[in-house]
């Protein structure tokens, strides 16, 4: 059971990383990056590293995702004006 979950997690991590890089739509890429960060959080906690998992969830997925979304907003605003 544990092994199957780990395998699924590893595949999902690789898949989301690939989709993040390959998606042409920049907004979707940022959302996928956040998904990637949350999956990475699960991986760290499966590897018994809860400290890194906490940091990844808060900084990697949360703050960086928000910053990237804000950057998209600024870029779109510039394109319109």
């Amino acid at each position: 059971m544990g092994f199957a979950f780990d395998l699924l997690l590893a595949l999902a991590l690789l898949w989301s990383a690939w989709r993040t890089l390959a998606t042409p739509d920049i907004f979707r890429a940022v959302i996928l990056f956040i998904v990637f960060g949350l999956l990475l959080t699960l991986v760290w906690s499966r590897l018994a590293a809860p400290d890194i998992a906490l940091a990844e969830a808060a900084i990697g997925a949360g703050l960086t995702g928000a910053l990237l979304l804000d950057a998209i907003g600024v870029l779109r605003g510039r394109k319109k004006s």
Partner: protein
Amino acid sequence: MKRFAVALLAALFAVALIAALLELPAPAVDLPAAVGAKMAESGIAHPVTAVLLNFRGYDTLLEIGVLLLALIVVLAVAAREEAKQPAVADPVLQTLARIAAPLMLLAAVYLLWAGAFRPGGAFQAGAVLAAAAVLLHLAGLAAAWQKPGKCLRIGLAAGFLVFLAVAAGLLVEGALLQYPPAWAGALILLIEATLTVSLGLILAGLFLFLS
């Protein structure tokens, strides 16, 4: 053809990486055992926090210095005159933000306190504080930050300055950041508490000074 060559090279690189990983020599120093032997003198019960703030406190001091420097650069680059109105968000997001922000504050204080004996600590707590500020801004409840006033400046620099003051004060004892065991717990708690506030402000500032 080109794609095939790239895929082949990537596969070869992956195989080389895995081979290198399997060939890793055993570490020369058994660090977990060395940390475990000194835990009683560190003043805290969680090994990760003990390494971050006691055994390798020097690294953490420089880390917070780097973050402060990054924020100063952002302030130098993002000089702005006109005040931007916060965007009007929908009421569902606003209500959610109003409910979530106090809970996030509570979670940050818990993470700070938990750092002494289980996973947690100043960096995670500061990140949660910053996330709360960003959420309030995105929901249109808090305006973006303009030029920092005196209070904000003190808050941004406090973590680094307190850490530096403790390090300088301990020079009298002989070495940089070598806490006396009796005082270690209290000093680390003082540093972590100010670090949490400063880190929260710095990380939120990276977002709010720019948006």
